[in-house]
């Protein structure tokens, strides 16, 4: 060993680096407060080439002003950033790649920007790391991907930097925690500077800078489903789910997707399920956003507790007035938290949601050839939680039914249900021999096809044709025929082995409406507890205030 050449090792490089960055911004901030017009100058002062950066952007709440400020920095000064954020939803999120400010991307979900992202990947402007689930990306914030700088959005801040994130707290806690406790910088755009925040969601000493934004941060009302658009087929499928799955498995703790199919279930709880005497026996505890279509089920005492990943525009007053149901702070407003909501849903008894494609093994995906859409939360909700140890009747029953298990210690199983019509819009079949995800993998050089829910985690497929209970399939061939047996008149459904399908039906691995005692004449819109947005407002006693675009009266 060359003892003379050893330098004393420095163990606080990150802290030193943070101090340098804060000093570089000293002429820009007044205390912690930075005026909106200096936001880009602030980012140029504190960012370094190659930084890992998170722009808070999720389903609803977006740090949109800071995203635009970032897209305006000089690429000669700030470049090669590694973006680590859950949603790519706004144009500036991709402008930073177009302008060479950022190069590498790890993300979860890109709804409307999926096409443009695909183009930028093809052009080599985005180096795609991986498409994650929400919990997976948050987890990596605490392992190999802590953000050096986090740009977040809050409702209000005081001069010291305490933040109030309010009902739309959403993803802020894990982002801020990972940055603040790894000597990263937290920069918050706020709608209001106030003398005193209603409650402290993020303490001031975790926050480096506060930028009052010229406009309130953007929030998208993405969980509002107008009951007027729910079809009788969706009502039939909702009846099938309640009678064929919720009732026999006694499902009390669950997570619902956010489509019209699950909205139909919510809206027939106070009617169809109540008549079956299921109040207090199913759907008591939910991990789901405050979807307006839940109002009748809450008001009629069906759903008792709801933890939310985010909020929903127009639902704030209603939620605040139902503190026994929702998670409400001492200030009287809700605090959502996507990470905890995902966790709660992961350990629930059942997940039910929709998808765009299902293959013969039961793998499902929302990926299509030309669009990199990502997953969001469904893969964590929609997977068997193998770390689970506590029992419930449905979890135990699913474990007992599972014929694919051979020996081993007894254990339960999460119910994972895909609820789909056999054809989507424009007669696109939902059931396919091969998922488009495979093409996407090839086009974009991904390590794996972006499968949303794996067939091995899936327990039931529900369509207008009935239920396929995959737990009762002994072989892959039976599983394939069970799926074909509910795939209707899609090419996959037409290619079924009719005799095998009838055998599966005899064994209860396929259940039709008539097997469940459902009279299809009852599948009428009269069954919906609310048939319009206005009905929902009425159920809420006027507390629900739908955004203008959902009002037609």
């Amino acid at each position, binding site marked *: 060993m060359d003892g003379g050449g050893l330098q004393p090792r420095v163990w606080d490089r990150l802290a030193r680096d943070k101090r340098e960055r804060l000093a570089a911004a000293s002429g820009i901030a007044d205390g912690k407060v930075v005026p909106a017009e200096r936001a880009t100058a602030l980012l140029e002062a504190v960012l370094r080439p190659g930084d890992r950066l998170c722009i808070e952007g999720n389903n609803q709440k977006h740090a949109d002003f800071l995203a635009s400020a970032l897209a305006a920095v000089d690429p000669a000064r700030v470049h090669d950033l590694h973006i680590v954020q859950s949603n790519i939803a706004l144009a500036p999120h991709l402008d930073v790649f177009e302008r060479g400010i950022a190069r590498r991307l790890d993300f979860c979900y890109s709804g409307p920007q999926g096409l443009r992202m695909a183009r930028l990947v093809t052009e080599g402007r985005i180096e795609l790391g991986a498409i994650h689930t929400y919990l997976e990306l948050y987890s990596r914030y605490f392992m190999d991907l802590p953000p050096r700088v986090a740009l977040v959005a809050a409702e209000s801040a005081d001069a010291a930097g305490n933040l109030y994130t309010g009902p739309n707290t959403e993803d802020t806690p894990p982002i801020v925690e990972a940055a603040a406790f790894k000597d990263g910088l937290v920069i918050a755009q706020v709608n209001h500077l106030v003398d005193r925040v209603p409650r402290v969601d993020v303490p001031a000493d975790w926050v480096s800078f506060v930028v009052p934004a010229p406009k309130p941060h953007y929030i998208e009302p993405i969980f509002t489903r107008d009951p007027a658009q729910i079809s009788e*087929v969706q009502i039939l499928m909702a009846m099938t789910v309640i009678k064929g799955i919720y009732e026999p498995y006694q499902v009390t703790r669950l997570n619902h997707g956010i489509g019209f199919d699950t909205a139909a279930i919510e809206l027939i709880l106070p009617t169809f399920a109540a008549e079956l005497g299921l109040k207090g026996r199913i759907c008591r505890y939910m991990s789901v956003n405050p979807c307006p279509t839940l109002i009748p089920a809450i008001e009629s005492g069906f759903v008792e507790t709801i933890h939310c990943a985010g909020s929903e525009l127009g639902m704030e007053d209603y939620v605040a007035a139902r503190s026994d149901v929702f998670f409400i702070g001492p200030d009287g407003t809700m605090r959502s938290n996507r990470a905890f909501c995902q966790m709660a849903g992961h350990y629930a008894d059942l997940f039910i949601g929709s998808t765009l494609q299902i293959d013969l093994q039961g793998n499902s995906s929302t990926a299509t050839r030309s669009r990199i859409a990502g997953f969001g939360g469904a893969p964590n909700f929609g997977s068997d939680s193998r770390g689970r140890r506590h029992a419930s009747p449905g979890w135990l029953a699913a474990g007992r039914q599972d014929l694919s298990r051979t020996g081993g210690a007894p254990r339960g199983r999460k119910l994972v249900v895909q609820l789909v019509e*056999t*054809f989507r819009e424009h007669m696109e079949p939902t059931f396919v021999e091969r998922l488009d995800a495979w093409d996407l993998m090839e086009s974009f050089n991904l390590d794996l096809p972006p499968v949303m829910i794996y067939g091995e985690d899936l327990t039931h497929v529900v369509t207008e044709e009935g239920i396929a209970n995959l737990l009762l399939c002994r072989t892959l061939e039976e599983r394939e025929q069970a799926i074909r047996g509910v795939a*209707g*008149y899609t090419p996959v459904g037409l290619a079924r082995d009719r005799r095998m399908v009838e055998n599966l039906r005899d064994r209860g691995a396929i259940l039709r409406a008539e097997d469940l005692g459902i009279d*299809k*004449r009852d*599948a009428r819109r009269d069954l919906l507890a609310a048939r319009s947005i206005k009905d929902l407002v009425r159920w809420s006693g006027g507390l629900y205030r739908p955004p203008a675009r959902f009002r037609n009266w």
Partner: protein
Amino acid sequence: MERLEFRFAARPTNRPTADHVVAGVVSSGNLEVLLEPGAPGSGATAVVETSARGFGPIWEAVLRDFFERHPLGDVTVSINDAGATPAVVGLRLDQAAVAFAGDPR
């Protein structure tokens, strides 16, 4: 518009059937189905007026299964589809058939 006609062997029914049954709401953007008794020996026939071309084989499969599920004797089914999926068609047909065969509930 495409007009499709299908004829299947009648499956005898021992129940009296209704004069006619309409399911669905005309001009509501929803599928409309009319069931009427056919002339003796005419079989089970179906006439489909559809706005979407090229789905003849699917219509045929949907209707064959329908007549197999519901023995309605000689019967004529008229369908005005408003671009409905087979799911909607099947549900409407099943709803109409139960009413046509006079199931009192």
